[in-house]
């Protein structure tokens, strides 16, 4: 039950999560999937089936930019980095979520639970 709830929440916040992970540096798809898994104690999971279409959609929105990069001794991978528009969108989403959480806090006092 609890995990279903988290997945519902995850859907709404997927964009922000990906944008936030790309904030520090450019990453490739596999790395992103791994990071989400590891940093959320496996509570959040992005299946490949949803991560890549999300990345493509963000790319179409010009919030991220994908580029094939070949590093010495490594396979050629597609790296995604945040665009300036993406950076602005991330800020906006953070603000919206903060307001949402604050409102939830007031209404449900779940922060004191």
């Amino acid at each position, binding site marked *: 039950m609890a995990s279903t709830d988290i997945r519902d929440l995850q859907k709404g916040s997927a964009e922000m999560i990906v944008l936030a992970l790309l904030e520090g540096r450019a990453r490739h798809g596999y790395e992103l999937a791994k990071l989400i898994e590891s940093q959320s104690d496996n509570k959040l999971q992005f299946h490949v089936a949803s991560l890549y279409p999300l990345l493509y959609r963000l790319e179409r929105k010009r919030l991220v930019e994908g580029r094939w990069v070949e590093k010495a001794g490594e396979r050629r*991978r597609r790296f995604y980095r945040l665009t300036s528009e993406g950076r602005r969108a991330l800020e906006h989403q953070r603000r919206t979520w903060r307001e949402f959480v604050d409102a939830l806090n007031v209404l449900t006092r779940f922060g004191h639970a």
Partner: protein
Amino acid sequence: MHNWQQYVRERLSHITVSPERECEIVGELALQLEQAYTGALTGGATEQEALSHARNQIRNWDDLAREINLAERYVPAPSEKDRPFSGFVADVRYALRFFRRNPTFTAIAVLTLAFGIGGNTAIFTLVDAVALRSLPYSDPSRLTAIETRKSQQPEIEPWTSALDFFDMRDHFQSFSHLAGISPIWNLVLTGNQPAERVEALFVSASFFPMLGISAARGRTFTSEEDNRSTPSRVVVLSHGFAERHFGGRDPVGSSFSMDGASWTVIGVMPVGFRYAGEPVSGTASDIEAWFPLSANPLAASARGLRFLKVIGRLKPGVTLERAAGEVAAIGGSLAEKYPATNQGFTDSIQPLSQQVISKFRGPMLLLLGAVGFVLLMACANVANLLLARAATRNREISVRIALGASRFRLLRQLLTEGLVLAVMGGLAGLTVAYVGLMYLVRTGPEPLVRAWPIQIDARALLFTTSAALLCAILAGLPPALRMLRGDANNGLREAGRGLTAASHRLRSGLVILQVSVALALLVGAGLLVHSFERLLEVDPGFQPRNLATISTLIYQSARTPAARTTLWGELHDQLLATPGVTGVAAVSRLPLMGSNLGSWLYKEGQTTGQPPLDVEYRVATPDYFRVMGIPLRAGRLFDDHDDANAANLVVIDEAAALRVWPGEDPLGKRIKLGSDAATAPWITVIGVVGSVRHMSLENAPPPEIYRPYSASPMISPILVVRTATDPEPLLGPLAAKVRGIGPNVSAYNVFAMQTLVDRSTEQRRFVMLLVGGFAVMAVVLAAVGIYGTVSQAAYSELPKSAYGWLSAQPRKPLFR
């Protein structure tokens, strides 16, 4: 080793994206699976477990394909990059790249536009300076000119008498200021230096405040200094005059001698100050000194002597119509009060700006129109060039449309190309305009180009920019629309075979337009040339060849009649003694220099109340007619024996004979001259001479009478010198002889008479040459346009013709 690419490709068959994009997506997903697989192996999984782990990454391929399709089809809201002008820089770069690759095309297009835009900018700058720009005075729209014209002879230049002006000034309610301005006055600057002529104006004290111009140093006149009973001997100098005579010193407070009197300098006008209205407009005169109107020798003259131009500034809130009503009413009351001098005159008012530009408006608009047509032709030519270029770009455009480029995006790119061309043409055009303007200013008629500062400024740049933008649209839009209207598939099929029929029609239309415009310009230029030729054929009424002329001005102290007669005798003898000189005479004003003094003529037997005739009035020495080559038609000329009763004799011209005594013999008839018929003496007509074009070659000569020199010795005789050969080499020595007569005699306007004749047609010649030049330019542009269209048509028809030729050949085997 697993082939993950193939694995993904086989399962992701339902995505509908471009092949390149599909490759990317497949590659990326394959890498994801491969990494999952490798990761599992590294984590200790068996081969089978690792494979299963990797395959479990994506379980439902159809869902994934649908999600990817949805994501890829997502159309983002217009971002900054997609707004109408985003990507403009890229378009410009693209256009520049194309132009670099096609230097011949670019050079022809840019040069064509450069001449079109440059020519227009040069002419616009000229016309703007001469006819469009508002006068450089404070609130110029409220400045008006009040004119008093003779109702029966409206062609006579309007002047107002001093007394009428004072009455107007006392009664007008509509004006905050009213100023009288004298004709351009020639004065002799005397002192230590050689005599120098100075052109001056006598103006009311309100003249400068009315224009809103203050002196740069010192001040202008006060109304006390312009007092009619006790005029002050003060003068305001032009900046140029002050610089020339006082160098860096402040002239204010110093005195100098002009016309034998001492004048105190009270102010110096700012650099570049010039009064633009009459009597200065239309002349190349450079006024160097301003005196109070009341100091003018004619200021106290009778009401019949009309010698002032009047200007006024409307009070705030007063309309021109209301002022016109008042001007007419006061003119009417003056006519009632002073019927002898004021009846038969009409007073009118017009904006001062209109008075200033009236002499130039027609020719200026003609020039602007002609050069505008040239710009239109240049645009048509560039449009034609771009259309021709479209032939080679059909495929590119069609492919881009097929790939989903929006028509707006393509239209923008094509228009950008036109704009880049126009900007390049505009920049090159500025150079053309600069050079053209320098040429115009150097060769143009003096009254036109010397009177105003003519230079390329912000207004000209704005005009150039607008012209370039207009060119961009006119030249870029037809080919752009043409290309975009075409069907993409058609374009693909047609590519490489030239233009469609519709494009041909468009290009033919452009060429027809060009030919029509060129023809119209040619016809216009032809008419101008024809009328100019007729003007040159006009007989000026005298023989200008081998004739020199020198204007003189005699210092005031020599202006007693006896002194003048002695001086003239000396001048005559000395000049006649010069080798190559065959005759010397003097006149009060040369032909083709406009009006001299007018006089009223009453003929004997004229009924009382009948208005007198305004006639031109000249004073001439007995030899004047012979030296000038003015033919005697009847009677006799003055001779040296007339001296005793010279005052009673007059020679008239044919125009006066016809006007005053139509169908009668004028010889022996008596007339009176002047404003007072009762007191003026009777004068007898002794001869009739041919009419001379005194005003200009274009205008029919007004009635003219000549009085003998001995009856009225001139203050500033204009000498005419007949020479045996070309007078040019003699001009210097002759002028030196005149100056050598005495330190207070100046000689100026020294030139061959033919120069005066040429100068009188200068403005027409100037306009004719320019319009002719534009017509030739238009023909060249039309020829280039026709060449382009025909060659393009031939090119696109080539395959068909070639097939036709081949099929018409006898069927012989090529190889045996």
